[in-house]
């Protein structure tokens, strides 16, 4: 399956989606001008991955900041992950970033996926 490997920019996160290496990670800042357009390829990739997913998918979110339009798209990603058996979300937050910790907790309440929390 094709690999998605996007470098971070000032307003978009780094994204790695690699089925063979079992790497699934979104990290950095997310405040694109058009969140729907930016995340569309990610959602489409997850649709394809879901058809032949690894037995386990550890999906890491390591976000420093995301805007409200991105939060809606993060929820869309989580909803896709909900349909992939064996998914765990690892929600990273900076150790003094209470808001990011809380954001993770809130997402975990909105979807039916196990969340693990870790600091960096």
């Amino acid at each position, binding site marked *: 399956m094709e690999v998605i490997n996007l470098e971070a920019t000032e307003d978009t996160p780094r994204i790695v989606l690699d089925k063979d290496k079992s790497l699934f990670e979104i990290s950095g800042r997310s405040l694109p001008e*058009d969140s729907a357009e930016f995340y569309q390829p990610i959602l489409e990739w997850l649709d394809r991955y879901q058809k032949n997913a690894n037995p386990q998918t550890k999906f890491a979110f390591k976000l420093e900041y995301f805007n*409200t339009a991105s939060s*809606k798209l993060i929820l869309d990603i989580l909803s896709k992950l909900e349909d992939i058996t064996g998914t765990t979300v690892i929600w990273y937050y900076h150790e*003094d*970033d209470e*808001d990011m910790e809380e954001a993770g907790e*809130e997402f975990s309440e*909105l979807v039916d996926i196990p969340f693990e929390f870790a600091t960096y």
Partner: protein
Amino acid sequence: MDFVYELHKTMLQEKLILAYEGEFTQEVTKSILAMTERNMDSFGEDSGVKRKVFNVMVECLQNISKHADNLDPESGAKNNALFMIGKDEHHYFITSGNPVFTEKVPEINRKLSGINDLDKDGLKALYKEIITGSPGLSEKGGAGLGFVDMARKSGNKLQFEFETIDGRLSFFSLKNTVSRVNTKE
């Protein structure tokens, strides 16, 4: 040329560290964010405060670029609006001003007043209600969460005002206050 000195005095008096008037695009948003971050780094601002200021600024700036209505559609000038950051010993003030169609004023007013009536848990519940309620982003690419998020992150009430420009347009001013004292402890 008196206005130059007057403007300078006003900026000092209002303790403004940055004021921008003009077109709002993603490029402008990124520049303003970068300048403000550098400014806050230069005197070692607390990282939690920095994050909150950044957060409120992004929502404020992207709100303007998505929603400010055109003062003069003929001229092609886009989203002519004002954005300012002020700072005193204990607070940051993130203020914006932009024209909106007067017909939208009651709805913005209702939204903001509703948000100001809520406490922390109420805001959290409203955030969840909005994020799960709509099937996607609006036509303008917003999640409808900007004001709620500003109130949650700043931890303060939103101050706002509308002034009549002409029969069609009103000027919408919005002020967010972020405390520089870390309220966590």
